[in-house]
């Protein structure tokens, strides 16, 4: 009998607990209007960053393409022409493509990069109408101005 009464009491207690939750603030984020504040190191789309003087950091070493576990990166290195240099090194990336559909956003390219050229920013809204839309080319990946990606352009790597 006591067990039965306890079971009934448990049911009533459950009802009260549920009612308690009705007065709490909903945790839903109304996405397009409100946005979640992401953790500072969250990984989204890539950027090819620049130095403060506007030179590209990428020296075309292809380490990112080698380390990439999903083989999403393609780099075509080229020699820097004297007087018309793109980077501070001997070489630069004349083409740089990342297939965002293959990328798993692991951030290993960022770790492998000796000059800190490729970084993963916090932007996660990646969508396109075709597969080709989501193969990001060099124009799309390179910062328009130093520091556009949110990383300090004065940093060493």
């Amino acid at each position, binding site marked *: 009998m006591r067990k039965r009464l306890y079971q009934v009491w448990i*049911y009533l207690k459950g009802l009260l607990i*549920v009612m308690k939750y009705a007065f709490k603030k909903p945790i839903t984020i109304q996405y397009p209007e409100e946005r979640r504040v992401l953790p500072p190191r969250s990984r989204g789309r890539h950027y090819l960053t620049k130095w403060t003087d506007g030179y590209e950091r990428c020296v075309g070493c292809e380490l990112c393409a080698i380390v990439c576990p999903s083989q999403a990166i393609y780099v075509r290195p080229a020699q820097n022409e004297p007087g018309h240099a793109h980077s501070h090194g001997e070489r630069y990336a004349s083409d740089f493509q990342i297939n965002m559909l293959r990328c798993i956003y692991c951030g290993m390219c960022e770790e492998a990069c000796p000059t800190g050229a490729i970084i993963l920013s916090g932007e996660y809204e990646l969508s396109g109408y075709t597969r080709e839309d989501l193969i990001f080319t060099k124009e799309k990946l390179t910062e328009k101005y130093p520091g556009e990606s949110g990383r300090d352009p004065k940093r060493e790597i």
Partner: protein
Amino acid sequence: MIEVLVKGLILVMVLFGAAAYMTFIERVVLALFQLRLGPNRVGPFGLLQPIADGIKLLTKERFQPANIDAFTYWLAPSISLFVALAVFAFIPFGGTVHLFGQEIQLRIADVNSGIVLLLAISSLAVYGIVLAGWSSNNRYSLLGGLRGTAQLISFEIPMGISLLTVILSVGTLSLPEIVEAQRGHWLIWSNPISFLIYLITSFAETNRAPFDLPEAEQELTAGYHTEYGGMKFAMFFLGEYVNILVVSSIAVTLFFGGWLGPYDWPVIWFVLKVAVIVFFFMWVRATLPRFRYDQLMSFSWKVLIPISVINLIVTAFFLLVVK
């Protein structure tokens, strides 16, 4: 004659609207309990959501699975909706009002044995479920239909017995007279156990959580309405929600003094009381997990029926000996 038709038409429209908005309110209430927001995109505060849902359901493809019993398959949803609506004909939702120089009774059928007819018709609702389960030629549907039958039959008995105590203590079968007898003294104060049993059985009667076994999503996909889509599904859905309104209205009529309240507002007290009970239905749905099938059966036959019989005997004893 015309008066009854007009009243019936208005009632059906109001019930459809109420059922449609109950789906919306249920979603919002459940969301509230689960720390969500619920539908709030269509129209201001999401208020147009039921209309959007209705348009979607009406414009869906009309399909019918292969190797089914076609006549029964099409008949079943209309049974469950019709029965739910028909019960409302006996429920008094107000006294007499004067409108356009006429005396209008706020009920459709004034039957002197309303409560018996009400039980008789509401028991027919199981045919919608059984026939849907049988005609769909689908194992899940059939299992849902079987569960529905067994559940409704075994919960009909304690419900009937608990309503008998009401009839005993009031001494009439007519619903308006039962309401009038509760002026100043609601029956829930003298028959609380009957009310509790009625409430529990009404959850089973409407196939709602925690007794939603006929449509248990996790086990039977959607139970008896697995093979139904579009407006046929919507009819089951409407029927279910009108049924909730029906059982809440019966509870209000029998235990909470129907339309009676502090001031002489015709329908408002009735609607308010029904709304509170409907909210309780949603609250319970948000809280309790589903009963297992054998638990359900043993709960009905080993707990509810003995309690309701003892309750009936005690009520009879009080009425005969003590009074």
